[in-house]
């Protein structure tokens, strides 16, 4: 069935896309500018601001830190989130309903509040080193995504499949790895990606927890903009965007993006 789209709808759709994509186009343009200040449209084309990123040790260091924190916090959140999501779904009837809300709490509390309270309690209060505090903070903010996404996967998992495996002689723990996990694999991968991107892009919590000598990329961008107004920030932003796009492409190739929308 072919339906004709009404002209106002087409105009509206174009406006929405412009609103979504416009800023990205401007950032990419600014990053490629040959000038020493941020400008759009770009004047002259150059990749020198991309080279500049890697010449500045602060950016090199914070890119590495951001990747480390993102990997570590996502892994940690999955280690907590997978068993939590499993228990919340498997024992839904006997568990109190507020328990599942508990795991979403970190996204409901304003991140500024979360960052500040982590600074007070973990860093200042307990004297935890900066890197560990960052790791804990990020784990906390990405955990809700892990629990939610994996829960959604498990909600459509038929637990009688698990019982069938057990009745055929597979011990419960082994059954979890050979039967349950392979069937929520797409959920686990989606959770990993969402969590990873959330961690890489986080500003609010990191702002409170970064300390002398240790910072993450978004915080470094912020600090840089405060002092300089050169296209380096734009090129770093493009780099961050490319990283996100790369992750999405990997997902699209392995699973198809549609499942993220489920």
């Amino acid at each position, binding site marked *: 069935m072919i339906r004709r789209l009404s002209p106002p709808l087409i105009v509206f759709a174009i406006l929405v896309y412009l609103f979504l994509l416009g800023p990205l186009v401007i950032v990419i343009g600014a990053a490629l500018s040959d000038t020493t200040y941020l400008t759009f449209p770009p004047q002259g084309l150059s990749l020198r601001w991309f080279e500049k990123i890697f010449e500045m040790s602060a950016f090199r260091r914070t890119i590495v830190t951001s990747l480390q924190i993102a990997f570590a916090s996502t892994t940690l959140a999955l280690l907590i989130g997978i068993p939590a999501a499993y228990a919340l779904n498997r024992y839904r009837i006997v568990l109190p309903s507020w328990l599942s809300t508990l795991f979403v709490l970190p996204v409901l509390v304003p991140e500024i509040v979360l960052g500040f309270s982590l600074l007070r309690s973990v860093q200042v209060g307990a004297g935890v080193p900066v890197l560990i505090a960052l790791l804990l903070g990020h784990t906390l903010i990405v955990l809700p995504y892990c629990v939610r996404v994996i829960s959604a996967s498990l909600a459509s998992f*038929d637990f*009688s499949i698990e019982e*069938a495996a057990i009745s055929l*002689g597979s011990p419960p723990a082994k059954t979890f790895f050979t039967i349950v996990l392979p069937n929520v694999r797409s959920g686990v991968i989606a959770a990993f990606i969402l969590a990873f991107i959330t961690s890489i892009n986080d500003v609010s919590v990191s702002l409170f927890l970064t300390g002398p000598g240790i910072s993450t990329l978004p915080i470094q961008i912020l600090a840089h903009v405060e002092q300089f107004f050169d296209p380096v920030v734009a090129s770093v932003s493009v780099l961050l965007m490319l990283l996100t796009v790369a992750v999405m492409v990997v997902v699209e190739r392995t699973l198809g993006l549609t499942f993220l929308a489920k």
Partner: protein
Amino acid sequence: MTATAPLSLANLTAHYGATKVLDDLSLEVGAGELVSLLGASGCGKTTTLRLIAGFLAPTRGSIRLGDTDLTALPAHKRNIGLVFQNYALFPHLSVLDNVAFGLKQRGIATSEREARARRMLDRVGLSALADRLPGALSGGQRQRVALARALVIEPPLLMFDEPLSNLDAKLRIDMRVEIRQLQRANGTTSVFVTHDQEEAFSISDRVAIMDAGRIRQLDTPEVLYQRPANAFVARFVGFENLIDLRVTARDGARVTAEGAGGATVTLDQDQLGAIPDRFVLATRPDGLRVATGETGLPCTLGLRTYLGRAYHYQAETPVGPVTASGPLSQPLEPGGTAWLAPDPEQCCILPPEPA
């Protein structure tokens, strides 16, 4: 070929939280016998099955299979073949790997387990689909795979949890016959849970009719259908008319009994067996005949429905509303007066229901 064993449940009581779902249930299933647990949802039939499988722990009581006490044994060590309502196949494994799964857990080498799984798939007529994923199969095929997967481990006990409920009517009957044939051929002790009376009666050696966590009657389908032991079972198997009566006179084998409103019925103990002073007369609609002969229970006829072999009438009597039947040759008009005579061949005498 299979080492089969009798199943024995003794005084099983189970709770979900504070709710008692199984109340002192005892059941013996002989070696090679197929016993159905039949009842409405919430009667405890699935709970019983889950207790035997080891997915639930009883509050009290014991479960024995042959010489083995299963009560405290973890579910994965019980060696019971289970067939689920929704098939419960492993979606990420091929049909062959699904069937071979149980053998793999038993440490059987790849080549042998594949050979055995293929033989079993052959028996259920699915060898051509061995490499497919379960998602590519129809409902009937999936249930055959599930059956093969449960049978291939040669369990001493097979259990079915409403295995045919998700299939369409025609397939349900075919599968029912197939399950029974395979079960007979293997001689495996079996427990079959269903809410479908026809299914239970057609497939079972004996049927346990359950209600509120207890077995109300356990017997062969023939006995249950013709001689229910109590009002609950009688209603369950279609004795729609239950009439409370009290004996007023005995004359040899002939007994005159009176019900509410002073209505009297005369019954013959030679045909119906001993009749106690207070009893319930149970009949199906076909066992309560409408006549114009002015003997029996007087009634006012209500709605008439045509059933092909007879007419059924909703009738008002002094003892309450009943459903009766009349011959096709003589349709009677609603609103008229008639008399109802119980057909002793299709009646039974039950103890009075506790108030």
